[in-house]
């Protein structure tokens, strides 16, 4: 009886699996929408006077038009595409500079490892948004993807560092060291396990983190520039008149929230857990 009970998956585990599946299906749908955005959108990006100014959603303009008469459906698709295209390289940067570097850093000689951990700890005490803004200010808007990835990296570094430290204390590591297996071989082995087990959830988590940073720096005017508007910049542009024309901000905001929500679900993040 007890065997049967332990063999059955727990309700929470089933729910988690379903939520992760929903997240990945959602991300796949967004990937399809992004790759077909030029085909799905009725007009090219930033086409003014496609319809009347500030027209509410209707049969002709399903998501309405903005203050320059741009079709909101087309603009939201283009904006989503711009956001995802900027977030993907940033996600890679966060994965490499955060998760990979953090894991490797934990296995460096102790003084070096803890010095690095200390420096990154200082960076992780600064809001990642401000770090991203600072890095864009030190370089240029063209580097916003790199800046967002590097700004998201400290937290990923700290998490990976702590995981690597915990793995180093496990019995298999102690046996391996006692058996004369070199630290480099052990690191290679742990890295393979770490990345096969966490690469997908780590990538989804980084995607959520960098999307929040990138869209926020765009909203503040530090990243995307017209005509290549991303969702953050679209919402910033709607700030002056969204109280009277809700659709100008609501649909880009919905698209952005869905993208982050799907990435969070795919990463298996808990409610309220930081990406």
């Amino acid at each position, binding site marked *: 009886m007890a065997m049967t009970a332990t063999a059955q998956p727990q309700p929470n585990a089933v729910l988690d699996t379903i939520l992760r599946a929903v997240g990945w299906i959602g991300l796949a749908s967004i990937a399809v929408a992004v790759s077909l955005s030029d085909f799905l959108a009725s007009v090219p990006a930033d086409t003014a006077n496609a319809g009347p100014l500030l027209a509410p959603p209707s049969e002709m303009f399903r998501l309405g038009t903005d203050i320059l008469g741009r079709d909101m459906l087309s603009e939201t698709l283009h904006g989503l595409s711009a956001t995802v295209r900027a977030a993907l390289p940033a996600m890679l940067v966060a994965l490499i500079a955060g998760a990979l570097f953090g894991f490797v850093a934990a296995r460096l000689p102790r003084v070096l490892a803890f010095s690095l951990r*200390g420096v990154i700890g200082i960076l992780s*005490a600064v809001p990642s948004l401000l770090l991203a803004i600072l890095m864009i200010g030190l370089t240029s808007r063209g580097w916003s993807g790199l800046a967002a990835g590097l700004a998201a990296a400290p937290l990923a570094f700290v998490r990976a560092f702590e995981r690597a430290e915990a793995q180093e204390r496990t019995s298999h590591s102690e046996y391996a060291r006692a058996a004369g297996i070199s630290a480099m071989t052990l690191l290679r082995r742990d890295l393979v396990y770490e990345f096969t087990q966490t690469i997908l959830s780590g990538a989804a988590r980084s995607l959520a983190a960098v999307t929040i940073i990138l869209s926020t720096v765009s909203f503040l005017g530090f990243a995307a520039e017209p005509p290549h508007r991303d969702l953050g910049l679209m*919402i910033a542009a709607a700030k002056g008149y969204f109280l009277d024309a809700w659709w100008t901000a609501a649909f880009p905001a919905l698209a952005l929230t869905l993208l982050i929500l799907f990435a969070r679900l795919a990463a298996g993040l808990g409610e309220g857990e930081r990406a």
Partner: protein
Amino acid sequence: MLHFALREAARLALGLLGALLLAAALAALGAPHAGRGFMPFMIGWGSVLGSLAQADLGRSAMSGGSVWHELGAHLPLTLGLVGEGFLIALIVGIPIGFLFGAGPARRAASPLVQVISAAPIFVAALALAYLAFHLLHWPVPVGAGEKSGLQLVPHTMAELQAALLPVLAIGLAGAAAAQLALRRGAADTLRQPWRVQLRRMGLTSWDVERAYVVPAVLAALLASLGEVVLALLSAAAVTEWVFRYAGAADLFVKSVALRDWSIAAAILFVFASLTMTAHFVGVCLARLLADPGAPASWR
């Protein structure tokens, strides 16, 4: 406990020193000829460190005034917003963390909390502004226009309306971090063997919850104080921009845009110090709360 507090204090001191060195390196970018190579930059860095030793933070390239003056003009607003947001975070986050910590309530609230967690702060702030404007008919200062100060202790209805939206937006961001810490703490206590052992010793379920579980869960919240403050500061940066308040976070954004590195460095240092100090205070209080063996003199 004393050993723990001393170790944490040493870590805090090292962290603050590191933050100071990094901030000085950033401020050195504003020194003459700093961009002309490694040596001029190092000379600039040394010069900034020398000035810092005399409590001179330099001058703002934007206003020409001293950095101290700029911080004095903008920081109180941000600290006030963060402080009031912290109260909202506790008022909202603690009940949510306890109510939805586990069981069917958590599963029921899960989808809503997930959606709210996915909305970036600026989206949440604009949504709050929209609701306040249309449902409560409040004047909402999100359009274009001059930035203003904020009455953190409102005396009139108009001042209360102006203060409430940014404080709510910041507080909700902090509440998310607070409830997460509480739920983590609650989940940890569920796994502890002492729950069953205490019941076997004859304690009622209520006694176990009141005397052991609640302190352990609150200790988890205190241990995450640094994370909560970090969430509040991040939210303040966006909220000041959305609601057009001239706080320190807004000044940071402006200073980076205009390459005023002295101001940017000072604000970064203040924010990092606040987070690190909150973490230090939080972990020490958590240790006191959760460690019944701590000497009475420390309580």
